[in-house]
């Protein structure tokens, strides 16, 4: 996934729940998406641990994966990646097997977040944020509220040319898979072909593919209905209350962004301490409140105000609802067929 924050939220001081005892976080390297945690999170962690952790940024999962695979996991201690990529790190033997005793705050996770399909029992990844992919739209401009993926893929004439779709392989294809009632991890060639044809037809009605500015297009009115991650739809909702988010009747995928400690880390104690620091309800709750993504942290979510949830209804989705959707999984060798299919869709006239 590919995220950034439209505006840097005012830094708030973080609760420092770190138990005393100076840990050596000397040279700890953390890689995360830009704006995906509090701007002062690393500084606060350093102040609490007396260390010298450093934050580096990646734009996409693929970018950090390229670096990790090339360096065989050296040079990084904790990375934030989406769950299919965490699976790959584990399959490549680059992910540390997690010692729960070193992360007391892991008990803050919802029980459901410890049973995620990609990693039951959190053996190599700790979930950081989770959510759904659905439709984000201008309720004041559409004649009726959308309730099906087909409202996006075969829009009414009045909406045609005013829709956008995510361009990232997995989510673009997921929209087609869900519309057809297939698994979001489908690898059957014939089904992939059907989805390709459906998405080529859909392309004719699109304004654009857009992974980064779709909510701004809704705010300006350039687009009226867009394919969106729930957290990013919230950025649109923050600017215009007529913007709404819905999950089509056919369902959504459940995406999970995780923290992975690398086996090659030379600062494992500090890496554990950092993960524990993030799982502190106050620190983890900051992400929910300011980045507007759901976090799988029970006390952090319980602390959100009713007003906040009324403004951003999708923040109120509970873990049971989320677990009802299929998680994107690593599809291994089929990724090449996915890439090719997406090239075919984008090259079609």
């Amino acid at each position, binding site marked *: 996934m590919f995220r950034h924050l439209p505006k840097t939220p005012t830094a708030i001081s973080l609760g420092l729940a770190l138990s005393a005892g100076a840990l050596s976080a000397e040279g700890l390297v953390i890689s995360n998406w830009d704006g995906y945690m509090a701007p002062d999170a690393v500084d606060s962690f350093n102040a609490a641990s007396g260390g010298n952790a450093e934050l580096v940024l990646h734009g996409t999962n693929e970018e950090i994966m390229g670096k990790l695979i090339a360096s065989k996991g050296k040079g990084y201690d904790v990375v934030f990646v989406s769950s299919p990529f965490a699976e790959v790190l584990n399959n*490549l033997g680059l992910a540390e097997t997690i010692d729960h005793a070193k992360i007391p705050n892991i008990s803050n996770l919802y029980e459901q977040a410890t049973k995620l399909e990609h990693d039951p029992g959190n053996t190599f990844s700790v979930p950081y944020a989770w959510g759904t992919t659905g439709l984000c739209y201008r309720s004041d401009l559409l004649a009726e509220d959308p309730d099906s993926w087909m409202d996006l893929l075969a829009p009414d004439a009045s909406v045609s040319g005013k829709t956008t779709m995510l361009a990232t392989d997995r989510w673009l294809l997921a929209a087609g898979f869900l519309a057809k009632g297939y698994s979001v991890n489908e690898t059957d060639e014939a089904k992939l072909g059907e989805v390709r044809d459906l998405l080529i037809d859909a392309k004719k009605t699109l304004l654009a593919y857009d992974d980064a500015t779709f909510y701004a297009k809704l705010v300006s009115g350039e687009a009226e209905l867009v394919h969106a991650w729930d957290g990013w739809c919230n950025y649109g909702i923050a600017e215009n209350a007529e913007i709404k988010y819905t999950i089509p009747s056919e369902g959504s995928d459940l995406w999970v962004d995780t923290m992975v400690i690398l086996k090659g880390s030379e600062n494992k104690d500090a890496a554990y301490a950092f993960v524990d620091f993030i799982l502190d309800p106050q620190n983890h709750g900051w992400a929910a409140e300011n980045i507007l993504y759901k976090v799988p942290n029970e006390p952090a979510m319980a602390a959100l105000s009713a007003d906040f949830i009324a403004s951003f209804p999708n923040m109120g989705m509970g873990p049971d609802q989320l677990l009802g959707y299929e998680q994107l999984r690593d599809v291994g060798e089929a990724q090449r067929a996915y890439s090719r299919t997406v090239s075919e869709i984008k090259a079609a006239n």
Partner: protein
Amino acid sequence: MNDRKPIYLMSPALAWLTAFMVIPCLLILALAFFRRGIYGGVEYTFTMENLALVFDPLYASIFLKSAWIAGLSGVIAVVVGYAAAFAIAAAPARRQPMLLFFAVLPFWSNYLVRTYAWIVLLNREGLIVSVVQALGYDGELPKLLYTESAVVVGLVYNYLPFVILACYAPLSRLNPEIAEASRDLGGSGWTTFRRVILPMTVPGIATGFVFVFVLSIGNFVTPALLGGGQFQMIGNLIYAQFLTANDWPFGAALSMFLIAIMMGLLTLQTFATERASGARREES
């Protein structure tokens, strides 16, 4: 007679190019012959599959589409740019530097910013639509942004100064007496232009066209922004292989093929220029 040329002065440039261009290109070339690992990365077993895949109808059609967009941009840029260069070369000599300065002024701002400016102009809630509507038109306007035309407009706009400079050089060096001679011999203005001026400025036109073509065919920013991701050009395909599909070997094979096309064109252009100037030398 001292015939020693200071070739050693070239060594810093050569060292720079070798270290940062030749060696990386060779690495990319080598990469094209290996296999992609299941999870990305590279398996060091030899294969020709990546190169064969470049000629797959799907990818070949993306190459052709890119060549079409780059060629169209090149032609439009040459027509517009040549006219501008002609006007500048015909202006009073003291004004020419100022006019050239204006022609290259856009280069002083960032490429991305200039491309975003087109989004502001062309989008459905943008400046052009607003102006047309303010003038009283209330029908639905055709989609301006996220179309093939928007991509071509963006490419032409961004590379036009190259063409103006490339065409201005030979036009400004033309001896005015040649055109006068043509007129004295009864050639009309159009005939003089077509039979005398145009042939003598072919090297500038070729340089300008090849510049625009080569820069456009590998461009991935403009199609992504002005094409709304709906036009996959070869640059976007290569970008995707390296940054999203994690298929470096195939990306490398595509890059090599693209570099080969560019080198072929640049060689042709050099030949054309050489021949044209060679012919002129013989005449004089």
